[in-house]
């Protein structure tokens, strides 16, 4: 065996051993992550109360708030979330027992189509995928998988030197023995998802670093303090003046006319501003936050976008968007879903190949090394 060949073989063993002992866990993360990408869409498919036709003039927020508060007695709307023209608007309501309930409202007819409490399917999948619902231990366990992932990618490319061939000559021998078929599939799927694995590995590594930095007490927040109203900006009244959601939204839309509306948060306390969040066309990855004085509907500050964001904020937002594929609507999500599925296949096929081959290959190398040692000692 030539030196080059045996080096390749060692790389190959590295490639196998990096993933094999943890393949099932990796596979689990990969599958849950893949599903999490389209979790909103799944909820939309499963739950009719989350759907909207997308036709007609959308109602102003005040009408949505009134409808939600009528459907849940004594509930108080804290925020509205828009998911697009085909989605019902979610109204998050504070309930008298201290919990929160979400009302799903048709944005055109104002009909409350359903109420849901507690964590949604989407949040559950995120929690399961991101931190095994076990914070922060699960977070570290999951994000640490970025390291073998990077290793698998690098060693895989070293082993399969002619990987670029799979781009223009993808070959999968479906009718051959399963080992051959899985091997072909592994190489082709691996080649085509190089960019995706790199994106996922790097962003996961960021999540690991991010949490470690937080726990080490390093500053990770933005450069800007939270926005609050001073006491002398708050009117004196017999009772709480109800914030005018329509005026707040009108101010926000006048400030950023091209913005796609995503969220309207009413003030959490008397000293908080109202917040409108949306995405304007120019910087698709970065949401805009407009803080508005709820009492006179004037803009206090516009945050987000590229202006004034600190490096760490930009990194955080971009890394998250890249990891989840949630930055360009449904087409991007479907691409992320497809490659997530491909990556899951990669892990599964890698395991199958290993079971059939690598165990033997390792034995051979171990034996070869022993023989070489024995002969050099002689």
């Amino acid at each position: 065996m030539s030196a080059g060949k045996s080096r390749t073989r060692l790389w190959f063993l590295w490639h196998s051993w990096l993933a094999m002992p943890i393949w099932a866990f990796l596979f689990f993360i990969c599958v849950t992550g893949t599903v999490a990408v389209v979790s909103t869409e799944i909820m939309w498919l499963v739950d009719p109360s989350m759907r909207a036709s997308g036709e007609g003039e959308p109602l102003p927020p005040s009408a949505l708030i009134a409808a939600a508060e009528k459907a849940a007695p004594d509930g108080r709307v804290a925020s509205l979330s828009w998911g697009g023209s085909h989605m019902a608007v979610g109204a998050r309501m504070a309930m008298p027992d201290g919990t929160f309930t979400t009302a799903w409202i048709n944005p055109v007819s104002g009909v409350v189509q359903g109420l849901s409490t507690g964590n949604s399917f989407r949040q559950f999948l995120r929690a399961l995928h991101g931190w095994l619902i076990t914070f922060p231990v699960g977070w570290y366990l999951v994000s640490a998988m970025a390291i073998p992932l990077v290793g698998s990618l690098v060693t895989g490319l070293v082993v399969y030197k002619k990987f670029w061939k799979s781009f223009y000559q993808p070959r999968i021998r479906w009718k051959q023995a399963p080992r051959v078929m899985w091997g072909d599939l592994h190489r082709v799927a691996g080649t085509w998802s190089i960019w995706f694995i790199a994106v996922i590995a790097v962003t996961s590594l960021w999540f690991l670093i991010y949490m470690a930095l937080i726990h080490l007490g390093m500053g990770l927040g933005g450069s800007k303090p939270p926005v609050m109203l001073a006491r002398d900006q708050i009117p004196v009244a017999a009772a709480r003046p109800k914030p005018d959601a329509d005026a707040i939204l009108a101010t926000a839309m006048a400030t950023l006319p091209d913005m796609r509306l995503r969220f309207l948060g009413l003030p959490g306390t008397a000293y908080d501003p109202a917040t409108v969040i949306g995405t304007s066309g120019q910087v698709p990855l970065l949401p805009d936050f407009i803080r508005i004085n709820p009492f006179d509907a004037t803009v206090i500050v516009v945050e987000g976008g590229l202006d004034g964001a600190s490096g760490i904020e930009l990194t955080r937002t971009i890394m998250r968007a890249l990891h989840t594929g949630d930055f360009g609507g449904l087409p991007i999500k479907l691409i992320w879903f497809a490659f997530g599925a491909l990556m899951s296949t990669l892990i599964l096929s890698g395991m199958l190949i290993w079971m059939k081959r690598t165990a033997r290959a390792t034995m051979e190398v171990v034996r070869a090394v022993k023989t070489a040692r024995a002969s050099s000692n002689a």
Partner: protein
Amino acid sequence: MTARFSIPAAAAAALAALAALCAASTAQAHYPICECRMADGRTVVCTGGFSDGSKAPGVVLDVIAYDEQVLVKGKLGEDSTLSFARPAQDFYVLFDAGPGHTVEIEHTAIK
């Protein structure tokens, strides 16, 4: 995430960061922090910030005597710090990021 759980600040900050779109509703989970020390024999340096690591440029920091007379009416600089000559009388530092978002530091704690 149920509201009743007392999650550690770091966790709250991280979860808030993750739920970028829900950031507005969890913004309250950041509480102000402030530390003051003697830079030399006479000058006090105070550094303000927030529990999520946010900086606090431009946030009010007043030095107030025990009889409530304001001795120094200040704002943190771009580096989130403020320096002032240590008053001779008893005083406390009030880092004031808004109603309910304050930190008080007694002069006896500034060394």
